[in-house]
């Protein structure tokens, strides 16, 4: 008696559960289909933008785009327009910008990755080596972008996406202390000293790793890039230029500025910014990210070209942000259309500039932005002359040795030329 009732109970339970399970699945499946149809019917409507034909066929499907929070709103507008024009819905997934590269690398092979993701050009080395990105043929649209943006987004002869903004450092000047832009590094120090500020010039350096990124313009002014460039602007890992004559001159210069106290590895980024914001420094070498806090602190900020220490132009590194395409995308056609015709449009580029505050990559939007804001113009003009930060994987072997040696030279821990040559040797060893 007891056992049977229990058995019955169990059976009911199992049946109940499976019914629940089935209804849950059924519900899902049932709901999805009509939803898609509905979308198609709504959106495949009269506006046939891409098609150049009168027929009203419905396209269905969707694109997945990984985007960071700042960019999401702008993309949402573009996505809505895209959906209205093509019937393809765009599914925007918000991700933390810093996570996107590694997530993309691990998710694309599993088939769970997006069709499109936002990113920075210096990720390309890793993304291409892992085979997770596909080239995007911009065709004649290539000429509509700033040269540095296309150069940055090129890798091994291919353009890997649609760039949207250019970011670089420039010289900030406290215009209340100094009223003219310096022509050379020495002139800048002189102007700074005459102004009566505690520090003529500050740049944030790490105690043990200096900062090769911020010091690069001065190194470039001695004619010593990291790698030689191929004809198409891409970097050649075989051609390490760090150790050329200019590199050694730069090493001497570092030691000189270190002993003079102009470059000081005890002043890190935070301290440099604090000093400048307090009005205690006449010049600061930094990026647009530090401008708002300086302006809030009441500093009259002007953005100048970086004064060269050597005879050549002081070109900084440029970082270019953009959107790239997954090599495993099953929606290449829709994704490419979205990238080239929507993300690459002046409206979207300008909208992205408005939320990010960085000079746009599309020349038309770039010019408009430069006319619109003095600070952006200052950085943009420097950025247009900048060199893209190398994205080749070999660059990974350079940073650590480069920074540690710069710090040692600035701190006077040995003969600059010797340390520099040792560094070049170590980097060559590490690249192999």
């Amino acid at each position: 008696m007891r056992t049977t009732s229990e058995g019955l109970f169990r059976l009911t339970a199992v049946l109940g559960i499976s019914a629940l399970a089935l209804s849950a699945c059924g519900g899902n499946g049932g709901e999805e289909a009509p939803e898609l149809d509905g979308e198609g019917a709504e959106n495949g409507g009269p506006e046939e933008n891409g098609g150049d034909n009168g027929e009203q066929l419905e396209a269905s499907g969707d694109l997945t785009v990984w985007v960071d929070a700042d960019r999401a709103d702008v993309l949402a507008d573009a996505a809505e327009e895209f959906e209205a024009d093509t019937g393809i819905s765009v599914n925007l997934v918000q991700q933390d910008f810093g996570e996107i590269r590694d997530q993309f690398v691990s998710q694309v092979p599993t088939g769970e990755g997006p069709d499109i993701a936002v990113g920075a050009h210096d990720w390309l080395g890793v993304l291409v080596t892992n085979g997770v990105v596909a080239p995007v043929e911009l065709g004649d649209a290539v000429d509509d972008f700033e040269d540095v943006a296309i150069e940055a987004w090129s890798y091994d002869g291919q353009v890997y996406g649609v760039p949207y903004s250019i970011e670089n450092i420039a010289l900030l000047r406290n215009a209340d202390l100094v009223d003219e832009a310096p022509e050379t590094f020495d002139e800048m120090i002189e102007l700074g000293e005459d102004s009566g500020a505690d520090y003529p010039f500050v740049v944030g350096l790490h105690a043990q790793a200096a900062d090769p990124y911020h010091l690069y313009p001065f190194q470039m002014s001695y004619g010593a890039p990291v790698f030689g460039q191929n004809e198409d602007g891409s970097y050649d890992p075989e051609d390490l230029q760090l150790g050329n004559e200019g590199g050694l001159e730069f090493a001497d210069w570092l030691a000189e500025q270190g002993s003079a106290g102009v470059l000081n590895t005890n002043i890190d980024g935070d301290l440099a910014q604090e000093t400048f914001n307090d009005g205690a420094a006449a010049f600061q070498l930094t990026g647009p990210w530090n401008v708002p806090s300086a302006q809030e602190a009441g500093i009259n900020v002007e953005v100048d070209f970086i004064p060269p220490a050597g005879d050549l132009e002081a070109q900084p590194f440029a970082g270019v942000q953009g959107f790239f395409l997954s090599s495993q995308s099953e929606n290449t056609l829709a994704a490419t259309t979205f990238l080239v015709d929507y993300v690459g449009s002046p409206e979207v580029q300008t909208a992205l500039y408005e939320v990010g505050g960085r000079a746009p990559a599309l020349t038309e939007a770039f010019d408009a932005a430069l006319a619109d804001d003095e600070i952006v113009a200052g950085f943009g003009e420097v950025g247009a002359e900048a060199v893209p930060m190398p994205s080749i994987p070999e660059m990974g072997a350079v940073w650590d040795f480069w920074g540690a040696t710069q710090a040692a030279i600035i701190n006077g821990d040995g003969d600059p030329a010797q340390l520099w040559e040792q560094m070049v040797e170590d980097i060559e060893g590490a690249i192999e």
Partner: protein
Amino acid sequence: MPEHTTTSGPPPREASKLTRRQRQAAKIIDATSIGWKLILFKIVVLGLLCATAVYAALVLFMNERWFVGSLVVVGGAALTWIYLQRGALPAKYLAPGLVFLLIFQIFVVLYSGYVAFTNYGTGHNSTKDHAIHAIMLQTQDRVPDSPTYQVSVLEESGELLASEELYFAVVTADGEALIGADEEPLEPAEGAVVEDGRVTSVDGYNVLPFAELLNRQQEVTDLVVPISEDPNDGYLRTQDGQRAYQYTSRYVYDEAADTMTNTETGEVYRDTGEGAFVSEAGEQLMPGWQINVGFDNFIRAVTEDSIRGPLIYVTLWTFAFAFLSVATTFILGLFLAMVFNDQRMKSRKYYRLVMILPYAFPGFLSALVWAGMMNQEFGFINNVLFGGASIPWLTDPWLAKLSILIVNLWLGFPYMFLVCTGALQAIPEELSEAAQVDGAKAFQAFRSIKLPLLLTAIAPLLISSFAFNFNNFNLVYMLTGGGPRDVSAGVNVGSTDILISMVYKVAFVGSQADYGLASAFSILIFIIVGTISVIAFRKTKSFEELN
């Protein structure tokens, strides 16, 4: 009916058998009536669980993930079975914990164990098929100075006999309309109508509208139309269905021979079992793919130049760091615990509260703040405490080691203080009183009575603290970054690097990642820490037996 009334009514004077049965029945009714809420709860929760499991399994099976799918089915069934049966109380209590243990511990351990035997990392990220697909995509070069073609995609018209095949129709610079398909080079299109440089209709074909292209986008983007009979002229391809470009491929993949051939140099790249196509000269074609490499990673972990040199030094420092960290924090923690445990101390509560503060701050934040305070020129320590001295706290190899121990002392003593306070309070005061009556001095009483009792309780915590500090990546990374390093030494390892931070530097150089090597290393470190812990635990056991 009459029977029914007899059973429910008060028993007249029938056999005691019936009464017992009645009692049993009442019990069952009782039991079920108390438990119906529980049963309902069970049904709902298990129902949801099973629904999720079935849904997940269906999705997984549809994606051909047979193994994971079956695991989900088996797991779901096992849980349902455990909770639907009477009894099996231990299983009911253990099951949720076991599930989480499996997912978050066992799986992770097994997975990193598996990765340690593969070449998984940058450049070896996926399958061979994906690698071939990616190489072909990435090495497709647009022919220099070739024009942009406005392309139309067509299909044969007519209901019958029409194939599903797609065609490209383009217009040349001289206005001639051409049509071609897969393996059918471009040829003049008969009866083509051209508007604005684009073919709008061709006799015998339908021009596909954009929406239709989107529905068949993979076919469209995969379509390769040769320009002419000569393969060197390249082919047309479109990525967006609007514009086609003329490409040549840098590599040709021969499926039968499983080789990649460079079309310009004729260099042949073969799959030699290294997880990439390799040329005769040993040049690898990236991306490669993931393969099993056996014990290679373990061999590399102890033989690679960049590791072998500093390995002994770093290992010694790791041991010293972990041991000294435990010793200093324990001594300070114990001392403070004893002080604040003394009855004569006033307002102990507030002091104790203050003592715990360092423990309450996030460790990485504290490390960053300390790094600022230890700045040679502007730091609080040099400027205020040492009156403007220029002590290189973080840039001198030995001072940096001291600094890291000081900061770890600051971070770690509250924990030791807490556990020692707890343990001390558990030791009855009479014991030391008795010892004092017997003539022992206060320190003697502490040494021979309280300390051994304390150690029995605390020793396991000291061991786990050792294991924690052995892998204290956060502190090293945030405070010194492993530095300072000797730039003339030629290796990227600094004087405060411990094993785990060295592994990080070796396995993740710049943006390159070598998960295989990192996993092999973490297994080696686990073996070291595990061995030490086992030995130490054995020792503490003998402690306990003494008591």
